């Protein structure tokens, strides 16, 4: 990548190197444009329940994006992203019931809150090595889950928790959606746009200075330290970015469900989220989209469309996780194109043999 660039070049050169207009990037840009067009214009026409599912896919691809950045780029693993998502949902719900803030402000505020929480967790945890960091985030997630079960989501009451034992459910408004996107389809498009912005933010980070610092840290921390990379800053930065994305996803989720309940978040979610992120692929941003599809679209397909017990998805995730760890570290996002290319070559050769006189056995 661009890591070997000598210092002294101007910002314009850096920008050119970040987004150089060779053939590959034009093709990639076209692919992204076509994908976005399909996502925004074609997918909502399939059906109402499909639109809801695709909204969830977009939301979860934002949170897996953060997790994938953290693990794939920096080599930090967090099993606590679901806890941050829950904190995001809670914050958005509380703020929405207490204030009349416009939705984009709500998004940013929620992101800022989870960002702060993530940095708070990350600050002491940053000196822990991979295994222990994973464990401490798992423990933090468990603790958050216990607190959530105890205080539950706001239901229109007063005080800090915003919860009352005698809720007036008839008068309770759901979490406000943006005024330009009240309906399900409009809200889906809104979510896709927000998700696209998040992916752009991630891309800018990966291609820019933070991305190079992260790569150095991931390869070897002592070497990065010797090269003058501010390890604490960039690790915390990654944590903050992933937490911010979890918060944004939480806010989007809160507005999607309207009145969130504690029952819809389970402790095992942090495990399935990690599994789907790895299956999707952590070294490519497309992996986050694949992961979002796996975690939200697949259960929907199993349960609603095909009538199969949705718990098979868990078994599939477990097997997929083992397979990815052992044979395909790049996940589906890297493995699938490679396999398709191989298959294409095989088919091409087979076609050549058949048309060339059938000399093959």
């Amino acid at each position, binding site marked *: 990548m661009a890591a070997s660039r000598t210092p002294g070049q101007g910002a314009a050169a850096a920008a050119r190197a970040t987004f150089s207009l060779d053939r590959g990037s034009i093709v990639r840009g076209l692919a992204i444009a076509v994908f976005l067009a399909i996502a925004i214009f074609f997918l909502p026409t399939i059906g109402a329940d499909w639109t809801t599912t695709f909204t969830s896919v977009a939301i979860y691809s934002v949170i897996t994006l953060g997790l994938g950045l953290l693990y794939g780029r920096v080599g930090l693993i967090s099993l606590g992203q679901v806890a941050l998502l829950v904190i995001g949902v809670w914050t958005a719900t509380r703020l929405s019931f207490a204030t009349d803030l416009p939705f984009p402000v709500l998004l940013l505020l929620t992101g800022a809150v989870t960002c702060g929480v993530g940095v708070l967790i990350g600050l*002491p945890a940053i000196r822990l090595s991979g295994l222990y960091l994973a464990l401490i985030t798992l423990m933090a997630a468990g603790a958050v889950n216990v607190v959530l079960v105890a205080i539950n989501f706001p239901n229109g009451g007063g005080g800090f928790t915003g919860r009352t034992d005698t809720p007036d459910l008839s008068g309770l408004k759901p979490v406000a959606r943006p005024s330009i996107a009240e309906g399900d389809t409009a809200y889906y498009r809104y979510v896709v746009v927000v998700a696209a912005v998040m992916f752009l933010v991630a891309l800018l980070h990966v291609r820019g200075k933070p991305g190079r610092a992260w790569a150095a840290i991931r390869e*070897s921390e002592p070497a990065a330290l010797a090269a003058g990379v501010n390890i604490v800053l960039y690790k915390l930065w990654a944590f903050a970015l992933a937490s911010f994305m979890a918060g944004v996803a939480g806010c989007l989720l809160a507005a999607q469900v309207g009145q969130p309940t504690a029952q819809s978040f389970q402790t095992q979610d942090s495990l399935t989220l990690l599994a789907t992120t790895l299956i999707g692929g952590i070294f490519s941003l497309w992996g986050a989209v694949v992961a979002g599809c796996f975690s939200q679209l697949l259960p929907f397909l199993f349960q609603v469309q095909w009538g199969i017990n949705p*718990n098979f*998805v868990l078994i599939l995730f477990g097997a*997929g996780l083992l397979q990815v760890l052992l044979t395909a570290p790049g996940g589906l996002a890297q493995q699938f194109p490679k396999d398709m290319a191989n298959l294409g070559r095989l088919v091409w050769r087979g076609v050549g043999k058949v048309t060339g006189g059938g000399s093959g056995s």
Partner: protein
Amino acid sequence: MHSVVGFAVFGVDWEFLKPYIVLGLALGGVYALSGVGIVVLYQATGVLNLAFGAIGACGALIAYWMINHTSWPHWLAYVTCIAFGGVVNLAYGLLFGPAFAARDPLVKMMGTLGLALILLGIMAWRAPVGGAFARFLPLPSSSHTFTLFGAFVNWTQVIALAFALVLTAVTTAFLRYTNLGTAYRAIANDREITATLGVPVRRVEASAWFGSGLVAGAAGLLLPDLITSLDYAALTFLVIAALAAALIGRLQSLWVTFAGGLAVGLAQALFAPYASLARYRSAAPFVLAILALLWLSRHRVVTITRTAR
């Protein structure tokens, strides 16, 4: 410590807390023995087994099925529960252990996450939870009680604590005085060199997987009785409390792990009678584990590790 009259030390009514202390020690016993099972496997293979609780839960569900849906003798169900843990753990160790052997401990741990997800999926599919589906797995030892220092104690609680104590003592002695135990410690030090010295590394590791699995099965058998219901999700996350105990023991010391397990169990049980804390008592293992982790890492500046391999 005589107890016919209630007494208060430090302003705490100990008479009132007695049943909770008994429960806490029994729970702590299960956490402690699970912690020991996790630490021994981690030492021998470098794998932190996150599927430990799921394996126990699966065994317990099989025992429940055998007791309630077949006419086989009950002891057979209990033996099956323990043996199931050993067999599943051994099968995973034989299938995936060698493939993960050279990888980072983090990757090894995530591999067991895969096993945990598979087991969770099977359990959620075959034995769904629901309001009408509360399951119980009472052990015959629970119906025999006696009074100790004025508190009711049943034999399951005694077995849990005693088993943890015996397991810790026997494992410590085993690691120090037997050839196999020496091989464990050698592998914990350096797997490659141990293999060069002629130790059958894979067979030694397999024995660790099997032994640790048996402990997982036993924990799965004891815990539903102590927490009165057989809920596979709760049993699966037994692994968190056990991990807390193991982390307090720095994933090394068996006796500190034992003490850590008791501390976690006691903390969880002693919060129960206080209404303001009761709702948060299940957070006790998490908080203790976080504190232990932060304490362990207080001197570290740079983490030298290779991840994402």
